[in-house]
């Protein structure tokens, strides 16, 4: 369990770094908004995405910090992460690959947003559809198994 505690600490450090970095980006974006903005919709999406990710990261930092204070919670978190049924369901829903693909598509969408709004919306639509299908499949399997 000591090794897992180290992993959790490293994870927390990475998340705190992300929160600090994204805060700087958001602040920079707000201060120099006039110069960076090209398309209000695309910019709004990027801003919202970053704020959303930052919110999730802060939530995860709080969750990990609370977990690290209780040995039983650490064991429960470890079990939840390594639970064979959950791993099986995730694999069945194709979650690992979908998350990688969605991240790449989202990154491509952000880049495309600077050049073409149609491509941007198409890519975001694909990501949305892909994630929705994965969540639905996962829920079906969670109910079935």
């Amino acid at each position, binding site marked *: 369990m000591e090794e897992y505690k180290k992993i959790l600490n490293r994870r927390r450090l990475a998340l705190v770094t992300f929160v600090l970095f994204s805060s700087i980006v958001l602040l920079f974006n707000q201060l120099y908004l006039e110069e960076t903005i090209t398309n209000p919709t695309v910019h709004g999406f990027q801003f919202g995405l970053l704020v959303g990710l930052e919110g999730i990261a802060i939530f995860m930092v709080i969750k990990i910090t609370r977990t690290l204070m209780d040995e039983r919670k650490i064991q429960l978190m470890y*079990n939840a992460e390594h639970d*064979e*049924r959950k791993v099986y369901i995730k694999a069945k829903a194709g979650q690992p690959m979908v998350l990688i693909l969605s991240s790449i598509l989202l990154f491509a969408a952000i880049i495309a947003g600077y050049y073409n709004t149609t491509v941007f919306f198409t890519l975001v639509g694909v990501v949305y559809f892909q994630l929705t299908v994965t969540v639905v499949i996962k829920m079906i399997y969670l109910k079935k*198994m």
Partner: protein
Amino acid sequence: MRTKIKELRKENKLSQEDLALAVGTTRQTIISIESEKYIASLPLAYKISKYFNRAIEDVFYLDDQL
């Protein structure tokens, strides 16, 4: 695949969460195994049987063995 986990758990006055914690899985997985929705892998079946000091075939058995 049928299982006697529920009976063994009640015999030992053990909650699903306690058993899950002891064998390194989640309460939901124990529920699924007990309700025979999910078939435990060999390592997990071995861990559960070992926890109750039983042989695997005493805890898990096929329908036709009834």
